[in-house]
């Protein structure tokens, strides 16, 4: 009945140079009919199910196939493109590795991220999002280096468990699509195992924000989660970063969160290494020690993570039962085995710096037993009463070692009612030092030499000594194997300038003693905890102009509050908590946000370094995060998220 007219559609599958396909349509033809005609006209045999029409002028997809051309308002002048909704995308992961996968270009980015996380096996995708990468400073010689790209484009689009994220089905410890081939297993390993410490030059090469303003520019790069990739100018094969955006990590369950935990650790590690978040020197050394430990444990038990995940409930139940039974049956003999109370006996030199004697180091026969050391004039007299016995429980132990100079000193600070007594023990060689140092460290924590950790303590002291040795020839510093990590790989570039690797070694070792016994998962969790306890944790910055103010200021957005930072001083001048928030409004025309808090507190600001949609989304997103509760963690209330973050797109 309606007049027929010609509609030209460019079909991507025909190639970039092919002319548009023209079909005859009427305005009451629905989109599904258009697609059918197009497909017939091309005469190509393929699966078209993922294809849809993209209207270039209006920058929108025509996804409602039942709508007519008239309803969409499409006329003969419309530039239409017929193409797949899923396209390859290069995705930079928090670990710095890149995967190539097919992402959805037609749904809101929020759903695209859900799909990506499903494929990568990351639970709680609402905490992540995509952002445009910071361009790396490319040097000429780097151009030759082609980075390794892990290809996931062959994964069927429907892979992964839909909607429920709590208990993904695992095969061999991996989601099904990773268990298909060896190559895919390799990808999963990359995702789920922490990367070795990066070479110091690699750290130095990365972009480091120097100020809070620099950091705020990074946050201007987040994509809008209510709009699709196509609408945001993202092209096929473009590169984007996948990052944790909301610092509110819900319900971390190491068994199911192998990839999530690993990538979260990687993001935290890089935040520390690139000084995206500030910490003190002591904290940096502890982070360094944890990285060293995590790398070491990950190397020694690489199967741990995956097999951990591999265990389904039955398996793990069986295993723990086994352990329990083992424990029960052998406890008595274990007890006996442990009772060969070990001791150390050797000639060492002792010095007490605080005593006003001019005597230097004096040699005695030393005996280390339980948590005490005693010394005697000589080995022969060691059957009798010792000259002195020192209980090391609660004391402080510090190393003073220079391998090149063959100096192996143990500095002890021993508490007593009158204060602390300083005692130095001098060892002859590495071997002796490692043993006595390990003993002192355990004893300071009230553990005897019989403790199971004694041997591993010796081992770690020795490997740190080895590091000092290899680092003394400082030039060879590519990221390295277990025994010879360059300590510059573990700290931010600031400390590369401040300390030589061999100066860092004892400091990191010192921090290491508190974490050396942690399992891989515990060490990862500890790293995250210390990160989360930093004062600036969870802050995303935006430069804003407060209403009535003449200068730029910085708004910090945290999981539970907003803060106002004076750029001149760098001080937090004001804090507002979300739970006191009554309402917030966005005026999209003048790009201004207005927030009302309880007690008649009103603030309004315009956003300088980020679109105000980004700020709006951050605030709404955090409020969404706080509504999650354990009972409903199985399903993601997408609609609520959209409502809280969507702005005018939401309705």
């Amino acid at each position, binding site marked *: 009945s309606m007049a027929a007219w010609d509609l030209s559609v460019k079909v991507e599958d025909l190639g970039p140079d092919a002319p548009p396909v023209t079909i005859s349509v009427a305005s009451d033809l629905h989109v599904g009919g258009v697609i059918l005609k197009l497909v017939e006209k091309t005469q190509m045999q393929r699966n078209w199910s993922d294809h849809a029409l993209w209207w270039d002028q209006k920058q929108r997809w025509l996804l409602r196939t039942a709508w007519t051309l008239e309803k969409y308002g499409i006329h003969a002048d419309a530039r239409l493109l017929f193409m797949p909704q899923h396209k390859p995308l290069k995705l930079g992961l928090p670990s710095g590795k890149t995967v190539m996968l097919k992402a959805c270009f037609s749904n809101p980015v929020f759903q695209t991220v859900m799909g990506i996380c499903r494929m990568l096996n990351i639970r709680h995708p609402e905490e992540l999002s995509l952002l445009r990468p910071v361009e790396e400073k490319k040097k000429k010689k780097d151009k030759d280096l082609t980075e390794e790209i892990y290809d996931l484009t062959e994964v069927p689009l429907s892979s992964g468990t839909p909607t429920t994220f709590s208990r993904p089905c695992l095969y061999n410890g991996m989601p099904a699509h990773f268990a298909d081939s060896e190559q895919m297993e390799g990808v999963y390993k990359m995702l789920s195992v922490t990367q070795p410490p990066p070479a110091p030059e690699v750290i130095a090469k990365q972009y480091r924000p120097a100020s809070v303003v620099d950091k705020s520019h990074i946050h201007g790069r987040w994509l809008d989660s209510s709009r699709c990739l196509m609408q945001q100018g993202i092209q096929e094969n473009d590169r984007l970063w996948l990052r944790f955006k909301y610092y509110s990590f819900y319900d*971390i369950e190491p068994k199911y969160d192998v990839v999530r935990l690993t990538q979260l650790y990687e993001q935290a590690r890089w935040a520390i290494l690139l000084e995206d978040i*500030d*910490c*003190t*020197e*002591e*904290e940096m050394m*502890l982070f360094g020690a944890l990285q060293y430990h995590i790398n070491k444990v990950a190397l020694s038990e690489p199967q741990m993570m995956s097999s951990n995940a591999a265990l389904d409930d039955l398996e793990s139940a069986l295993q723990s039962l086994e352990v329990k039974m083992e424990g029960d049956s052998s406890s*008595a*003999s274990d*007890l*006996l085995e442990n*009772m*060969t*109370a070990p001791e150390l006996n050797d000639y060492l030199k002792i010095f007490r710096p605080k005593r006003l004697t001019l005597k230097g180091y004096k040699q005695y026969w030393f005996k280390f037993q339980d948590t005490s050391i005693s010394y005697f004039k000589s080995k022969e007299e060691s059957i009798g009463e010792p000259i*002195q*016995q020192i*209980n090391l429980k*609660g*004391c402080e132990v510090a190393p003073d070692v220079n391998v090149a100079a063959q100096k192996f000193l143990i500095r002890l600070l*021993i*508490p*007593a*009612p009158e*204060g*602390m*007594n300083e005692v130095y023990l001098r060892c002859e060689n590495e071997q002796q030092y490692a043993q006595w140092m390990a003993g002192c460290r355990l004893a300071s924590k009230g553990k005897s030499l019989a403790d199971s950790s004694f041997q591993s303590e010796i081992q770690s002291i020795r490997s740190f000594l080895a590091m000092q040795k290899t680092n003394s020839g400082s030039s060879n510093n590519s990221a390295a194997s277990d025994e010879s990590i360059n300590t510059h790989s573990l700290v931010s570039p600031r400390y590369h300038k401040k300390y030589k690797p061999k100066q860092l070694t004892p400091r990191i070792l010192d921090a290491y003693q*508190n974490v050396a016994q942690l399992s891989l998962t*515990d060490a990862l*969790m*500890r790293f995250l*905890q*210390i*990160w*989360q*306890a*930093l*004062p600036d944790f969870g802050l995303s910055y935006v430069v804003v102009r407060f209403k009535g103010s003449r200068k730029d200021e910085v708004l910090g957005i945290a999981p*539970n509050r907003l803060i106002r930072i004076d750029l001149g001083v*760098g001080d937090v001048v004001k*804090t507002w*908590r979300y*739970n006191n928030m*009554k*309402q*917030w*409004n*966005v*005026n999209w*025309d003048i790009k201004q946000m207005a927030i009302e808090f309880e007690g008649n507190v009103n603030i309004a600001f315009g956003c300088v370094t980020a679109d105000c949609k980004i700020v709006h989304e951050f605030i709404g997103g955090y409020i969404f995060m*706080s509504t999650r*509760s*354990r*009972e409903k963690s199985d399903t993601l209330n997408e*609609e609520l998220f959209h*409502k809280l973050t969507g*702005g*005018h797109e*939401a*309705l």
Partner: protein
Amino acid sequence: MDDIDAMFSDLLGEMDLLTQSLGQETEPPEPLPSTRQEINFSVGFTGLNASLHDLEDNDLDALMADLVADLSETEKKLEAEIQGLNAPPSSSSDLPPPPKGLGVQPASSITSPPSPGNNRSSSVTTPSSSTSSPLPPPQSSKPTMEEIEAQMKADKIKLALEKLKEAKVKKLVVKVVMNDGSSKTLMVDERQTVREVLDNLFEKTHCDCNVDWSLCETNHELQLERTFEDHENLVEPLLAWTRDSENKVLFQERKDKFEVFKNPQNFYLWKKDKKTLKDMKDKDKELLVQENFCGTSIIVPDLEGVLHLKEDGKKSWKQRLFQLRASGIYYVPKGKTKSSRDLICFVQFDNVNVYYGKDVKNRYKAPTDFCFVLKHPQIQKESQYIKYLCCDDAWTMNLWVTGIRIAKYGASLHENFKTAERKAAVSAAVWTNRSTPSSSSPSTPSPTIRAKTATQANGHAPKPQPGPPHQFHAADLNMSSWWKSSINSLHRSPPSLASKPPLSNFPPPPLSMDGLPPPPPPPPMDNFSEDPPNINKSLPPPPPNPEFLPPPPPDPVFVASGAPPPPPPPPPPAAVSAPRPAAQQKKMPPAPPKRTTPTLQGGGGGGGDFMSELMSAMRKR
């Protein structure tokens, strides 16, 4: 009296053994100050004798009941352990001739009667086991094999004995000064936590058991004071006291102990004005506790300020800008910014405790009397290693001390609070049920033997334990109902997004959300039903509201006291393993335990003194 004496001679032997481990610590001939020279058997007395004479009659009875109960318990434990070792220390004859190493073997004296049914698993002499033995050694050809085995076994037995001796427990007689100035005497064993001792004192005193009751230590010489944390073991810090010290243990109500859980805003939002802090709603307080204590990481209050520092060993005081972090206290060096990387570490918390300092203006010419002190718990006398910090007012001092405790003890503090709350609730219930409190605590609860709590944290905030899900209900309820309400109101008055000013507008939450849910929680559907049923005409469907509401807490009694705790533990039962004779009446000494095992011969350790004094004290009656 003869009965008592007979019982005592029995007891004495046992006690000797029990306390042996104390006396056995080797004393160096030229004692280092760092070496523990003497072990105190009593704390808070001029001497042991005084401590015993000081005991009230019923206390002495109670103490005896404790001792007897502990003995039988220890005995049972030993017995069990020995049987578990599969190597009964009996000298029965199916063993190859005991090698020389066995000469020491006092094992038969330990307690356990030789158990005849106990087969030695590796013994080659029993035919039954030789069949299963994978490698039956030809006995004639290799006699040494057997000897080696026997020797090994003997060594193991010897070691097992050593281990058992080690397993014995240190005990202290502690005099606790009550808040009315009177005192009570308690026997405390080294495994007991402060919480357990408090519970013990609750039974003895009929106090109201509120959460503020605390044990404090004072250091007389240094004029310091600190509240023990409930999860700490009591004996350990007391052992650091010097023999002649006039330190005291006080039983007091300390408001500051758990104030951070009652009014978290005063610590976490201390920069806000006084009125805001005072008017803080309960739901906001709960949210603060949840944010800072129930997440993956414990968050330390954000403290920063100028404090006066007494310089190491000097008499002068110097001002510095200090900052508290989870990893320690830092200060800003002269001429530097406050940026984290420039901060200098002043102290980390692994090896120090925090104390309140008294009378510092007088003693050290301090600028104010609001002083807190950081020192190693072993330090008991004036030393340059003690760090004194002065604040401008009492509140600031309180802020810092609490902040340091959070950084040092982390999640344990919150656990302690929840336990104390449960205890208070149970006691309150018991009180209302009790007709007359005149029965004057019929039985002295003996220390419940418990493994050291895993929550004992030292240093940085320890790993949080993933709490049971219901732990979060109260706070969740608040947060979600808040959102529910604003979203509901959103539906009632849809923002005119289609109209000109494109605003997304979230109307305020209704004011009805103030305050805690009342003890019996409102039926969950109440709030929901406020919604007009026809709201989703023009809007997408509302969020599934019913899901926002967690199921009502299991036990309404606890709702009022914050996050609903798990059901209360039953009131401390009489020890599970060992039925202990209750000291029923004043004049009735505890019945001597039925003993089938040979009694011990006194080992002559350091316990001798103690026991004879104890005995003479008993005789005196």
